[in-house]
């Protein structure tokens, strides 16, 4: 009866508009946050470089071949790139300035030996979870990250020898060794593969090992920086690409494509997120305004109920619970629609060859909870102020 009395004189059209706005806003809010998180997570853990990071070198042209232009980076050039607003960090890729060869040292596989090129990356840029990624002089085994192409080459060799090929797991159990040398001395250090990479074409070693080799077996030549790592800021990867184009830099194509894709999809979802936040905010405001309008239209009823003995809290509850219920139902339907939409979008991504994690992201539900809590608080304040103003 109280509900019938207090919720008469309703303008359903305004309520329906507000509910529709809230429903669309909430659905797209959860969806955009979910996919923003998932797209940003895409590729993480699968590669050793952190997100938005590329290794670049100067493009080799005829003029560089004839030494007319340089292929190495000066410290001034590095500083200039670092100063760009969309660049989070720039670090040189350190290469070996000593002779090093890599060979198998396991009785299970035939001897395979090759002079190699080793590099080290600043640990800040590396996404290596292994606790084995450290080495200090005197330690017998140096951990390495092997280019996947190198394993393919090794397997091609095995196959030619009539020996079964090795898997990633088996390769990580085999023994290898480095031979470090210069004109005067030579040293052997055992090596163990702890991971593989598609991003770097050389064998990666810990920084301490590179420092040791460069110090103890230096060939005496000046060490040039021919590759640098650039880490772009979130969703600004396109600008990094532009910079590379302007400065004649190049990178492995896969890194660029993933970065470009993540940047593009991320921006798209950011825009949707922005619109969703505005939609939720505006529809929330319209609902709150609708509550105020309803209270003002029923001001006589509210005043009379207070005069005949109803407590202001009883009437506050009526308005507060009604609107919280409305928003709760909208949030629930929005969540259900998001789950259906997710089912469809995940399938669409998969069809397109993008295997993003299909688990639910807690961040989108946290956003929903925050939205619901904010609306609950705002409705309570509005209902309380509206009723007590009639007291």
């Amino acid at each position: 009866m109280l509900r019938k009395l207090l919720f008469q004189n309703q303008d359903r059209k305004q309520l329906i508009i507000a509910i529709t706005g809230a429903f669309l806003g909430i659905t797209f809010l959860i969806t955009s946050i979910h996919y923003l998180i998932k797209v940003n997570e895409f590729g993480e853990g699968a590669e050793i470089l952190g997100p938005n990071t590329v290794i670049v070198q100067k493009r080799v042209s005829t003029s560089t071949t004839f030494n007319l232009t340089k292929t190495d980076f000066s410290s001034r050039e590095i500083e200039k790139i670092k100063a760009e607003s969309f660049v989070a960090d720039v670090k040189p890729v350190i290469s070996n300035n000593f002779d090093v060869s890599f060979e198998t040292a396991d009785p299970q596989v035939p001897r395979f030996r090759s002079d190699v090129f080793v590099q080290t990356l600043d640990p800040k840029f590396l996404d290596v979870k292994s606790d084995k990624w450290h080495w200090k002089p005197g330690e017998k085994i140096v951990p390495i990250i092997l280019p996947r192409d190198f394993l393919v080459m090794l397997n091609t060799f095995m196959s030619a020898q009539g020996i079964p090929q090795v898997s990633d797991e088996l390769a990580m159990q085999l023994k290898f060794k480095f031979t470090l040398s210069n004109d005067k001395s030579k040293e052997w250090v055992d090596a163990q593969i702890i991971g593989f990479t598609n991003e770097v074409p050389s064998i990666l070693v810990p920084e301490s090992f590179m420092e040791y080799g460069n110090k103890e077996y230096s060939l005496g030549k000046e060490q040039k920086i021919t590759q640098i790592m650039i880490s772009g800021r979130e969703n600004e990867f396109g600008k990094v690409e532009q910079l590379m184009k302007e400065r004649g830099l190049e990178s492995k194509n896969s890194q660029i494509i993933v970065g470009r894709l993540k940047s593009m999809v991320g921006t798209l979802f950011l825009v949707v997120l922005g619109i969703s936040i505005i939609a939720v905010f505006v529809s929330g405001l319209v609902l709150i305004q609708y509550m105020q309008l309803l209270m003002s239209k029923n001001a006589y009823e509210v005043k009379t109920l207070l005069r005949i003995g109803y407590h202001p809290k009883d009437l506050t509850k009526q308005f507060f619970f009604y609107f919280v219920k409305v928003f709760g139902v909208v949030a629930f339907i929005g969540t259900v629609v998001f789950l259906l939409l997710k089912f469809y979008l995940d399938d669409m991504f998969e069809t397109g060859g993008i295997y993003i994690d299909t688990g639910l992201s807690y961040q989108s539900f946290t956003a929903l909870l925050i939205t619901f809590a904010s609306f609950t608080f705002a409705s309570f304040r509005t209902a309380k102020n509206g009723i007590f103003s009639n007291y």
Partner: protein
Amino acid sequence: MKIRFNQVMPIPLASIQHSSESIWGNEVSFNTGQKILLNASSGKGKSTFTSSAVGLRNDYTGTISYDELDIKSFNEDDWTKIRREKIAVVFQDLQLFPTLSVKENLLIKSLLQPKYSEVELKNFLEFLGIADKWEQKCGLLSMGQQQRVAIIRALIQPFQWLIMDEPFSHLDVENTKKCLELIHQRCDEQKAGFILTTLGETHGTHFDSELKL
């Protein structure tokens, strides 16, 4: 519960000359169980008296107290309890809900302190000659019928005081008599008093005292 007006002067009435017998600007006490007629001509503040006495307006100087407690110090919990259990009011503008039926108007009040069944509520209406209006919307009733519904609504709650602001203005002598009979009956049952404001008529009934504004 004793109600006391001590030097009370409503601000909108401060510029008007009041007689020495007037409640305004004097000290007057209403003792438990008293039946009081408050007589005044138009514009002397009968509705202001009712509204001020039940805490609906505070624009006055002086003090109104219940059992020596200044009513301006009461919070919403105190007022809710007082309006449910201690003071029943028949407002001059009745304060009924025109979109609700007579039944709903009575039940919405009765729900707060359930004392009478629907049958008993109907009996009240029967006594005042409007039982056939039970399901009819209040907004469709005549003013006289509405006044009777408002009187019944006030009487179905427990109270120590019944304050009525010109409650019979649209009733004939016969219906007024019936209403007063019911009012006396309910007041006597609860040992409650009443304050009845009128425009000078005594309605031919018994009063303990007659006051002026």
